[in-house]
C-alpha cells in the first residue's frame, strides 16, 4: 500500500530526469492511475492490505485504506489528475518544469499519507511533507509577492506543525499510543491537547485567525497548483479537525465545548471569508477568500457534530460532504480562472468581459462550478449546504442562544451567491472590454478541457444523487465516528423548506449584487490596521529594529574592549622587549624571552594561576 501512496513522489523524482513537459505529465498520469487503481483495488477488496504497515526497528508508520480517508484520498488523486492535464497548457512545453513536477508529486504523496494514515504519527508525517512541498509550489513562480506569501505560508505551517507535534507528544505521554481513538486517563489535559491540535490543523484549514497565509499563497502559485492547494490541501486541515474531534469524543464534556468553539470559529471564518471575497477585484484572490469562507461551512458542520455529540449526524455528514464538494468545484473554479488568464493575461474582473464567446467550454464549466458553490438546487453544493443548515438548526434548538448563527448562515450564502454572480457576470458576460487572443485548439488545449471536464462531471455526479451519496457512501465511510453522530443521519435534502431557504439566499444575493454595482460597494478598501498581517509586520519590524540596535551596541562594546586589549597586549610586549637583554647568537636569540609570544605567556600565567588556586583551595577543604 505504501507503494501506491509513494507513487506520485517517485514519479516526481523520475521527472527530474525527463526534460520534456509532455513526458513528465504522461509519467505522472501513469503514476496517478496506478495509485488510483491501487486504492480502488483496496476499497473493493481485490487487493489485500499487505504492506500497509511500514515497521522499522523502533518506529511504525501504518496506513489504512478505509473510511473517509480513502474517499478523500481518491478525490486528491482526481484533483492531481485534473491539475496535471491542465499543466500541459499552463506551462511552456520546452521550459524546465522538473522542479514543479517533483513538488506537485511530493505534495500529492503528502496529502495521500495524511488522509490514509492509520494513526496520528503517520498523519503527521504526511502533513509535514505536504507543508514543505507545497511551500515550493507557492514560490515556484519566483516573483517577489510569491516569496513573501511563501514565507508567511511556510512559517505559519511550521508553527502549526510544531503545535501539532506538541499535542502528539502530550497524547503519547498520556496514552502511550497515537491511535485516533486513544483512551485518555483521568489526569490527561484533553482540552489542551485538543486545542493544540485544533490550532495546528486550523492553520492548514484556513481557520480565522490563522488564515492569513491563504489569500496570499493560493493566488501566488501556478494555477494548476492553486487548484490542488485550494481544492484538497486545505481539506487535510479539516480532516485533521475531524480526527481531533473524534479523539476528544471519549470525553463528552470536552467534546461539547470543543464543538461549540469549532462551530463559532466556523461561523466567523465563513463570514470573514465572504466579506473579504466581495471586496476583491482579482479573481484568484477572490477564489482564495471563498476557500476560507467555504472552510467555514465545513468547520461549522463539524462543530455542530461535536456539539450535539451522538445526535450531530447532520453536521458531520454535511461537513464531510462539503469537503468533497468544495474540493471539486473550487479546483474547477481555479482552473477556469487559469484558462481565462491564459488568454487575457490578467484576472482583473472589472476589466474582463465577454469571455463566453472566446472560451465557451470554460464558460460552461465555470457556470457549473459557480452553481455548485452557491448551492443551486440539483448540484452538489446545495446538498451539503442544506445538510449543514439542518444540523445548525438542530444545534440552535439545543442552545437557543445560537439563533443568530443560523441568520448569519443565510446571509453568508447570499454573499456567496452575489460573489459568483460577480465572477460570471464580469468575466464571461457582456461585451469584451479589451482585445483577447482566441485559443488555438491544440491537443494540449483539449487536455485542459478534459481536466476541467472531469471535475465538472464530479460536481454534477455528487449533486444528482445526494441521498445516495450521503446515506450509502458517506455514512458507511464515517463508521467509527458514532460519537459524532455517524449513526444518526437521515437525508431529507429536497424539501419545500430547503428550497425556500436557498431561494431566499439567491434573492438576497441578487439584491446585494445590484446594490453593490449601483453604489460601488465592491470597491471599498478596508483600513490597513484591520489586517492581522499589518500587526504581524509591525511586530517583526520592531523585533528587527531592537535586534539591530542591540547588535550595534554590542559591537561597539566589543570594539572598545578589543582596542583596550590590544593596547595592553602591545604594552606588555614592549615591556617584555625592554626586559630583554637582546642577545647576539642565534641560540641565545631562540631562547630569549622575546620569542615567547603572548600566547605562551598566557599559558604560563594561567598555569601560575592554577598553582595559586591550588594552595588556597587546599586549605579551604582541609
Amino acid at each position: 500500500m505504501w507503494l501506491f501512496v509513494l507513487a506520485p513522489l517517485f514519479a516526481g523524482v523520475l521527472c527530474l530526469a525527463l526534460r520534456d513537459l509532455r513526458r513528465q505529465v504522461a509519467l505522472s498520469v501513469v503514476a496517478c492511475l496506478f495509485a488510483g487503481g491501487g486504492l480502488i483495488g483496496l476499497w473493493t477488496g481485490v487487493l489485500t492490505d499487505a504492506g500497509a504497515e511500514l515497521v522499522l526497528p523502533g518506529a511504525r508508520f501504518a496506513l489504512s485504506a478505509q473510511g473517509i480517508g480513502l474517499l478523500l484520498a481518491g478525490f486528491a488523486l482526481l484533483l492531481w489528475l485534473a491539475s496535471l492535464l491542465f499543466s500541459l497548457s499552463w506551462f511552456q512545453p520546452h521550459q524546465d518544469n522538473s522542479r514543479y513536477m517533483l513538488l506537485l508529486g511530493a505534495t500529492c504523496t503528502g496529502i495521500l499519507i495524511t488522509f490514509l494514515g492509520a494513526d496520528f504519527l503517520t498523519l503527521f508525517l504526511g502533513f509535514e511533507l505536504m507543508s514543505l512541498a507545497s511551500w515550493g509550489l507557492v514560490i515556484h513562480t519566483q516573483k517577489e509577492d510569491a516569496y513573501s506569501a511563501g514565507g508567511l505560508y511556510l512559517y505559519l505551517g511550521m508553527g502549526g506543525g510544531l503545535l501539532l507535534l506538541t499535542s502528539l507528544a502530550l497524547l503519547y505521554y498520556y496514552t502511550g499510543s497515537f491511535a485516533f481513538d486513544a483512551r485518555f486517563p483521568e489526569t490527561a489535559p484533553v482540552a489542551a491537547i485538543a486545542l493544540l491540535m485544533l490550532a495546528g490543523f486550523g492553520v492548514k484549514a484556513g481557520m480565522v485567525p490563522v488564515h492569513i497565509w491563504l489569500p496570499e499563497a493560493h493566488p501566488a502559485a501556478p494555477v494548476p497548483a492553486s487548484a490542488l492547494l485550494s481544492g484538497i490541501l486545505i481539506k487535510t486541515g479539516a480532516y485533521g479537525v475531524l480526527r481531533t474531534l473524534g479523539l476528544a469524543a471519549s470525553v463528552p464534556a470536552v467534546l461539547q465545548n470543543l464543538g461549540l468553539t469549532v462551530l463559532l470559529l466556523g461561523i466567523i471564518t465563513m463570514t470573514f471569508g465572504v466579506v473579504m471575497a466581495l471586496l476583491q477585484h482579482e479573481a484568484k484572490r477572490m477564489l482564495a477568500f471563498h476557500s476560507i469562507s467555504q472552510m467555514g461551512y465545513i468547520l461549522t458542520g463539524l462543530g455542530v457534530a461535536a456539539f450535539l455529540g451522538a445526535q450531530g449526524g447532520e453536521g458531520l455528514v454535511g461537513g464531510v460532504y462539503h469537503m468533497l464538494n468544495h474540493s471539486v468545484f473550487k479546483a474547477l473554479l481555479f482552473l477556469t480562472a487559469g484558462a481565462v488568464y491564459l488568454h487575457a493575461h490578467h484576472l482583473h474582473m472589472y476589466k474582463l468581459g465577454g469571455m463566453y464567446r472566446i472560451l465557451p467550454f470554460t464558460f460552461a464549466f465555470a457556470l457549473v462550478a459557480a452553481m455548485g458553490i452557491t448551492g443551486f438546487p440539483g448540484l452538489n453544493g446545495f446538498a451539503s449546504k442544506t445538510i449543514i443548515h439542518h444540523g445548525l438548526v438542530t444545534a440552535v434548538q439545543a442552545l437557543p442562544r445560537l439563533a443568530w448563527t443560523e441568520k448569519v448562515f443565510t446571509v453568508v450564502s447570499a454573499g456567496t451567491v452575489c460573489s459568483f454572480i460577480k465572477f460570471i457576470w464580469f468575466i464571461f458576460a457582456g461585451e469584451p472590454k479589451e482585445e483577447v487572443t482566441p485559443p488555438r485548439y491544440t491537443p494540449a488545449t483539449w487536455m485542459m478541457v478534459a481536466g476541467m471536464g472531469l471535475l465538472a462531471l464530479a460536481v454534477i455526479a455528487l449533486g444528482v444523487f445526494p441521498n445516495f451519496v450521503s446515506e450509502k457512501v458517506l455514512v458507511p465511510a464515517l463508521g467509527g465516528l458514532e460519537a459524532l453522530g455517524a449513526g444518526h443521519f437521515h437525508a431529507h435534502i429536497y424539501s419545500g423548506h430547503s428550497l425556500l431557504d436557498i431561494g431566499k439566499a439567491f434573492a438576497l444575493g441578487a439584491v446585494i449584487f445590484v446594490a453593490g454595482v449601483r453604489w460601488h460597494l465592491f470597491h471599498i478598501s478596508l483600513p490597513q490596521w484591520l489586517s492581522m498581517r499589518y500587526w504581524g509586520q509591525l511586530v517583526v519590524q520592531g523585533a528587527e529594529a531592537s535586534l539591530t540596535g542591540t547588535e550595534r551596541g554590542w559591537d561597539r562594546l566589543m570594539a572598545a574592549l578589543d582596542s583596550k586589549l590590544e593596547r595592553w597586549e602591545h604594552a606588555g610586549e614592549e615591556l617584555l622587549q625592554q626586559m630583554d637583554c637582546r642577545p647576539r647568537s642565534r641560540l641565545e636569540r631562540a631562547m630569549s624571552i622575546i620569542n615567547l609570544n603572548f600566547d605562551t605567556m598566557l599559558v604560563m600565567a594561567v598555569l601560575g594561576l592554577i598553582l595559586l588556586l591550588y594552595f588556597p583551595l587546599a586549605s579551604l577543604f582541609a
Partner: protein
Amino acid sequence: MNVLILIAVALPVLGAVAVWLPSLRRAPLVAPLLTAVLVALAVAGLKLMPGGGETSTWWQVAPGLSIAFRADEAAWLFAMLAAALWVPATAYANSYMAHHRHKVRRFFTFFTLSLTATMGIALSANFFTLYLFYELLTFVTWPLVIHNETPGARRAGRIYLIYSLAGAAVVLAAMVATWWVAGTLDFTPGGLLAGASPAVIRLTVILLTLGFGVKAAVMPLHAWLPAAMVAPTPVSALLHAVAVVNAGCFGLLRTFYSVVGSAALEAAALSTSLLALASITIIIGSIFALRQDLLKRRLAYSTVSQLGYITLGVFSGSPGLLLGSLMHFVNHGLMKITLFFCAGAIITRTGIEHISKMEGIGRRMPWVMGAFTLAALGMVGIIPINGFQSKWFLFQGALTAGRPEVIVILLASALLNAFYFFPIIGAAFFKGEEKWQSEGLSSALIWTPVLTAALCIVFGLIPSLLHPFAAETVQSLIN
C-alpha cells in the same frame, strides 16, 4: 591492557608520524584515512568483544593518579560517534586539501593527532586522564585553527587558546577539589561526591560548568566557536561540530554523572539555574545565527544553539531529558557535519561564502544542496529526519521530568531554526535562473555530505539504531 583501546588511543599517533614518511608520496592522504578506519573498527570492536568495559591502566603516575581507560556505555557512545564520523571527514579533508594545497603534511599530522585526543577523552577511566586529553585536544587543534596563517586566523587561534586554556584551568581546579574531597579521581557510577557538603558540591558543579562549558559553548563562553570558523572547513566540520564541542559536552556529562553523581547533583539544587543558562544559549544562539550572512558563521551559531539542547539534558539531571540530549549528541553531530561539508564544498567549487550570494546554487550543485536541505530540515526537527528523534525524546523527557517550560523553549528554537535555514534553501532552489547541472559524485567533497545526509534519514527512520545505546548510557549514568 586492552588491545582495542590501545589501537584507538595510540594508533593515531603512529598515523600522524606516518604522514611524514618520505618514501610514500601519498602518505599524507593514505595514512590518516587508514588510521581513521582502523580506529573506527577498533571502537566498534569494543562493543562486540567481551571485556570491553574493564579498566586498563597504562601508567601509574602517582598513588591514586593514573592514566587509565575504560569503554563503558557513555564512553563508547562518544568514541563511536567521533571515530565513525572521522572516516568520511578524513576522506573529505583529502579532497579539500587537494584543492587548497597548503602545508598538507602539517595539517594531517594535527588532524590525526586530534583523533588521539578525542579518543582519550572519550575512553578515559578517571578525571585525571580526561583532563590531560582535554588539554591535549586544545593544543593539537590550535594549529588547525590557525592553519591558513592569515592575521584573522592567528587572532582566532589566540581567542581559541585563551578560552580553552582558561577553561581547562578551571577544570583543573574542579579536579583538585574532587581529589581533596573524595580522595580518588576514578569515574564511578553514582559519583564520588555523594556525601560531601552542598557548598563543596556546588563549587565543583560551577567550576565544571565553567570549565567544560567553554568547549560546550555555553552562552557567555561561546565566542571562540564562531571566531574559529576561519579554519579550513574539514576542521570546522569535524572539530567544531563533532569532536571539540562534543568533547565539552561529554566532559560535562562524564563529570556531572560519574564524578559529582546524580544524587549529589540533586543536593546541589542548581539544575534550575543551569537549565536557564542552557535555555538562554538555545534561544540567543539561534537569534545570533539568524543575523549572520557568512554561511559558516551561521552554522557556528547554530552549533552554539544546538549544543544547548545537549547541555540542557545534562544539566537537568532527569533520565528522560538526558536520554533526549544523548540522542541529540549523536544526531546533531551527523546533521552538523553534513551542513559543514556542504558549506566547504560550496566554497571550494564556487568560492561563495555568503548566504546572500547563494541564489540558484541548488541548481548548480543539486547533490550538495540536497544534502544540505535534508540536514537543515533535520535541524528544524521535521519528521522523519533524525533531528525529529532528538526533539521527540526531549519532549517526552520534559513531560516526565515535569518541566513543560522546556517544550516552549524547544518550540521557539525550532521555529528560529526554520527562520535561519529556510531562506538558504529557498535561495538555493527558488531564486536565480541557473540551469540544472550535476556536480559529479566522484569527489569526496560531494559524496561525503550525501552519505552523511543519507545517514541522517536512516537514523531518523530507524530509532533503534541509536535509542538502545542512549538508553543504556542513561541507565549506566543514573541508577
